[in-house]
Each structure stands twice: as C-alpha cells, then as structure tokens.
C-alpha cells in the first residue's frame, strides 16, 4: 500500500516535470534566490525590492503569523466574553451576545473583511488637513499612527533587566507557593513582583541616561511621517478575522460551560467555596476539556482564513505567493510551498493544542 502510494507520487512528480519541460516552462526551486523586484507595504523584517523571492515569501509568512497570532488572542478574549455573556443572568447582556453570534456566524468571512476595509476604514478622513493633537495619535484612512520610542544603544541593558525581573518574579512566586503549602500562610508578593518586573528595568533605564527619544507622527505633503503605523489592511483583516472567529468560539465556550453539570457547582458551594473560586477551580477546568478540541479547529480556521487578506491587499503569505507566482511564473512550486507552509503552521498549532489538551485532561487516579 505504502509502496504503491510512493510509486504513484513518484510517477506524478516525474510526469509533471516531463510535461513542464515539454511545454518549455522552467521548473525547480532555483527561482527563490532570484531578485524579487517588487515592494511590499508591510515589512516586519528587513526587505527591499533588491531582496530575493525567498525573502519576499518569508515576509509574507511573518505577516501571516502576525495577523493570525494577534487574531487568535483577540478572538479568544472576545469569544470567552461573548460565550459567558450568552449564559448571563442579565437579559440585555444575553440578548446582545446572541445578536453578536448570529450576525457574525452567518456572514462569510470575506464579506466581513471587505466591510471593515471598504465600509469602515475607507470612510475615515484622509491624512491631509488632519487636526494636530497633543498626544500624537492619528486615526485616518491610512491606518493608526502613534508616537514611538526610538531606542538608543544602551537600551539593551533595560531589556536585560526586564528579563532578569521576570525570572526573579517567577522564582519568588514559586517559593511563596512552596511556603504556603508547607505552613499554610500566604504572604502578599504582588508589590515585590511589580518592583522586579517594572521597577528594575525602569531603574536601569534611568541609570543608563534615558537612551530613547520619542518620535511623533507629523503631517507631510502626502502622509503622516514618522511614528508607529498600523496599516488599515492589517486593522481590517485583524478585526474581521477575530470578530468572525469569536462568534464560533463563543458558542464553543457556552457549550463547554453548560457541559459541567449543575451539581458540581452546588457541591462546590456546599463546601463553602466562593463564586470566583467555584468558576476557577471547578467549572472552568472541566469546561476546558470540552472547549479545547473544537477551539483548535477554530484557531486553524482563523489561520487559513487569513489568506483572504489577498482581497484587500494585506501582504500575507498567500498574497505574496500570488505575486511571486505571477512575476516568476513558477505556479506549481509556489502552490507546493504555500501548501507546505500552511500545513506546517496548522500541524504545529494542532500539536501544541493537543499537548495543552492532555495537560488539562482528566487525571485519572
């Protein structure tokens, strides 16, 4: 069976290569090192039109991960809020949550993306004649622009201090927990943690002589120059993907919570646990077992839906791939690369969620 499959695959690949050669179409992955020649709007890693096709695809991958990562976090937060809202005692909260779910769940994601891009962000004012404001925050049809810190050479010291602070805070928390389980006495450590995580890097920052300057966006002839810019394509795609997926996550969360029988809650309160603790220690851990597997598929859906960014010109992997495909003409190679990359991302996410699921699963004793 496996031998047959391998032979079949070999036959397919061989046949394709021979037919490509017959049609005088260049093939192979050598084109990845050729100069790309086109520019990309959003480049989180260094890229210019003198970079290679391979580098361009890498920029696309990073952009995909950016919007998918941010989308997953935001979708999860919104999804949990709406999902819990669906079970609220309050009639208005319950109604609004239901309306939200029904609206976003029943519209195709591409329409949601186009709505945010052409329907919301495009109708904002242009960057010219925008009123200057003292905070330097501008929301225009060119996206959101904010002031940014330009760090000097000594800024790495503060960064290192931040890392040290986090490690120390974790150690402190662990020691405190051990102390509590040994003696039953809980010591307040919030302030010490804050001092370590925020105070230490701040102190180092001041001691090294404030090695940073603030850059504020200023209006120029065409655009606002300088500062930190979030492009409207990102905003539209991010909002659309996360709000769309949140509707599905909300339903999963609701199902998860409902799956924990009422008796559990009642038993917990009979033991004298407070409401917050009941949720945290009894309901949520059991709900998670129901929530995580379908949540994984929603995360995968969100990642794959990010390829719809093509429609509004968000330079994610598929959009860049399409451009490279057309500029280089290597269609089969690009499709293989794109499929391989999406497959890899999805498998990695699945593996992580499976690991998380095993961790949360019922520990049989």
């Amino acid at each position: 069976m496996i031998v047959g499959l391998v032979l079949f695959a070999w036959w397919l690949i061989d046949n394709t290569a021979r037919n490509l050669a017959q049609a005088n179409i260049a093939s192979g992955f050598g084109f990845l090192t050729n100069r790309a020649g086109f520019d990309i709007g959003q480049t989180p890693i260094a890229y210019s039109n003198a970079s290679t096709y391979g580098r361009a695809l890498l920029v696309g991958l990073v952009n995909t991960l950016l919007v998918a990562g941010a989308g997953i976090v935001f979708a999860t937060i919104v999804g949990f809020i709406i999902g819990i809202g669906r079970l609220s005692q309050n009639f208005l909260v319950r109604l609004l949550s239901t309306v939200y779910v029904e609206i976003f769940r029943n519209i195709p994601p591409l329409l949601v993306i186009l709505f945010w891009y052409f329907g919301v962000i495009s109708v904002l004012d242009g960057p010219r004649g925008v009123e200057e404001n003292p905070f330097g925050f501008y929301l225009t049809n060119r996206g959101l622009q904010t002031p940014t810190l330009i760090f000097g050479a000594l800024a790495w010291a503060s960064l290192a201090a931040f890392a040290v602070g986090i490690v120390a805070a974790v150690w402190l928390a662990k020691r405190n927990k051990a102390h509590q389980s040994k003696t039953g006495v809980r010591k307040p450590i919030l302030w010490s943690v804050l001092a370590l995580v925020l105070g230490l890097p701040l102190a180092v920052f001041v001691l090294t002589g404030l090695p940073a300057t603030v850059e504020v966006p200023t209006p120029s002839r065409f655009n606002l120059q300088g500062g930190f810019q979030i492009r409207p394509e990102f905003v539209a795609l991010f909002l659309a993907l996360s709000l769309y997926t949140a509707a599905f996550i909300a339903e999963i969360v609701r199902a998860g919570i409902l799956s924990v029988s009422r008796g559990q809650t009642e038993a917990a309160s009979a033991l004298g646990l407070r409401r917050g603790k009941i949720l945290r220690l009894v309901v949520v851990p059991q709900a998670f077992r129901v929530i995580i597997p379908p949540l994984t598929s929603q995360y995968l859906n969100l990642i794959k839906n990010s390829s719809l960014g093509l429609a509004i010109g968000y330079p994610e992997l598929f959009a860049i791939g399409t451009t490279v495909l057309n500029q280089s003409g290597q269609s089969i190679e690009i499709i293989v690369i794109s499929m391989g990359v999406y497959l890899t991302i999805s498998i990695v996410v699945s593996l992580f969620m499976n690991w998380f699921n095993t961790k949360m699963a019922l520990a049989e004793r």
Partner: protein
Amino acid sequence: MSLKFLTAALGLSVATLVASGAAAQTAQTVKDRGTLRCGVNTGLPGFASQNDQGEWQGLDVDYCRAVATAVLGDPSKVTFSPLSAVQRFPALQNNEIDLLARNTTWTMDRDTALGLDFVGVNYYDGQGFMVKNDLGVSSALELSGATICVQSGTTTELNLADYFKTNNMEYNPVVIESQSDVNSAYDSGRCDVLTTDASGLAASRLEMANPDDHTILPEIISKEPLGPAVRQGDDSWANIVRWTHYALLNAEELGVNQDNVEEMKNSENPDIRRLLGEDANFGEALGLPKDWAAQVITAVGNYGEIFERNIGVNTPLKIQRGQNALWTEGGLQYGMPIR
C-alpha cells in the same frame, strides 16, 4: 495525510498538463471544436469589457474575433475567458485557452521561461501615474513619500519599484489583486496615486466617482508593448495569429477598410490584390482560405478602425494614436509585407 493532499493537488495540475502535451496542433483543434477560446481581461473598458447586452467589446476582443474569422470564418465563434492578471499565464500554459489577448506586456521572461510566444504588439503602452487634482502635483518626480495603489503580479509593480529607486524617492505601496479593487481603494482615498499602463489609467479614470478630479501625470516610466500571445511550440498557430495582426496593419496602410473591402478586390494595386487573396493564395501556407484577410477585414475592420472604435478620440477613453499610428504616420505600427 500531507502526502495524499499534495499528490492530489499535483495530480490535478498534471491532469491538465498531460492534456496540453497532445495539443500541439491548435489550429486543427480550434477547427474541430468550432470555436476559439480567447483569454481576455475581466473588465478593462476599451480593451475587453462587456456591454449592457453582455457582449464583449474592445481592442483585444476584436483581435480574438479577427483570429476566429481567419480560422473559422465567423467573428462570433469565440468563447471568451475573463482572466485576472494572476490567472492568465497558467490558463494559456494549461491549454484552457487558445489565445491570450489580455493587454499583456511582452517581456523576455514571459517569452522564454514561461513557455509563451508573443506574436506582435497590438498596443504600444507605457506606465503612468494618476493623482487627485487637489494634491497639486504636476510631475511624478514630486511623488516622494506618497502612498501608491498598484495591481499585484504585474510589470507595473516592478517598474514602480525601479522608478522610485532610480530617482531616490520613497513610497508606500498598497498592492491589491484585482484592478477594480485597486481603483476603488484609490478612489476612496486609501492612496494618493494610482499607477498602471497609461491606457488603463484612462479607463480607470472613467470609473472614478468624479473623473474630472483626477489628472494623469505626463511622465511615462516604462515600455509596455501589449500584445497577443500563444503557447510555445506551435509555430503554425503562432503564424496564423501573427499574420492576422499584420493583415490588419497592412489593410490600414493600403486604405482597405470594412466598407470598401469588396470594391478593393477589383483594385489594380498588387499589394491590395495580394492582401485580399485575388492574385495569390497566401492563406494556403497558413492552412486558411484564400480570402482569409478579406474576411477578417469585413468582420472587424482594419487596425485603425479597431483602434478608433474602441479607444480612439471619439470614445470616452479619448486616446490619441501616438506611438500606435502607422509607421507612415510617424508611429511604431509596422505590418510586415504580405508577399
């Protein structure tokens, strides 16, 4: 699971490629099928677009009709395939169409590594810029720092990068796949500048909410020879398309048009008699009837008529002949002699 998925996808592309291997005789295939499959733009007024009745019209469309007339004797025997910029080359490579007449720039890479064969230039174009009047820009060299809307996967995108690099200017690209989305992004104010071929700009301007608010800048930053293409490796098919193109040009040069083609058959001019198949049978070597050129001119007119009907000064696009005038008028269009 991954292997299965991959092989399934490869299998799909292979299935189409296997089919193309056997189809070196495009002309015979078209005759057997009774219709010409022609790849055109999804909607570019003047070049290929559908009118209120759903009929295709435009310069590229007339080229499809001309070739259909030459091969099948009937300009209506064309099946149009509207293709996006990204779809066009795979469609031709995979034998989904017989002829690509989709305002496509003839470049070396496409003519060699992509397995295409360009047969002529039916429109000499160049890339230009369009801006909103209220920006007060009068030259492309003032555009540093501007946000520019451009269609993805085009030579336009590459020329843009080169032009700004050469002139040490910066820009902020907004790259969208479909030209109509590019246009609406520009119209809604997402970009300061729209760039594409100059002919495309003239067409796009008509689609703006307020065409008079936009100006096309004088700079032309690239050579964009647009022309029909066929698959490599079928020389007789390439010959048919190539000489149909030359016949249209020669007809204009000799003053043969849609109205006078019948009386011109009685002309004393040997060039005209050869073109219309009165004295010699040049159609035979192409595998076409003797009067193929006469039929083509009766169906669609000569090159000048096609130009004026679709994009000329009396159409909404108002494009001058310019470089597309005949060589005798100081332009670049030059039909190789039929003899």
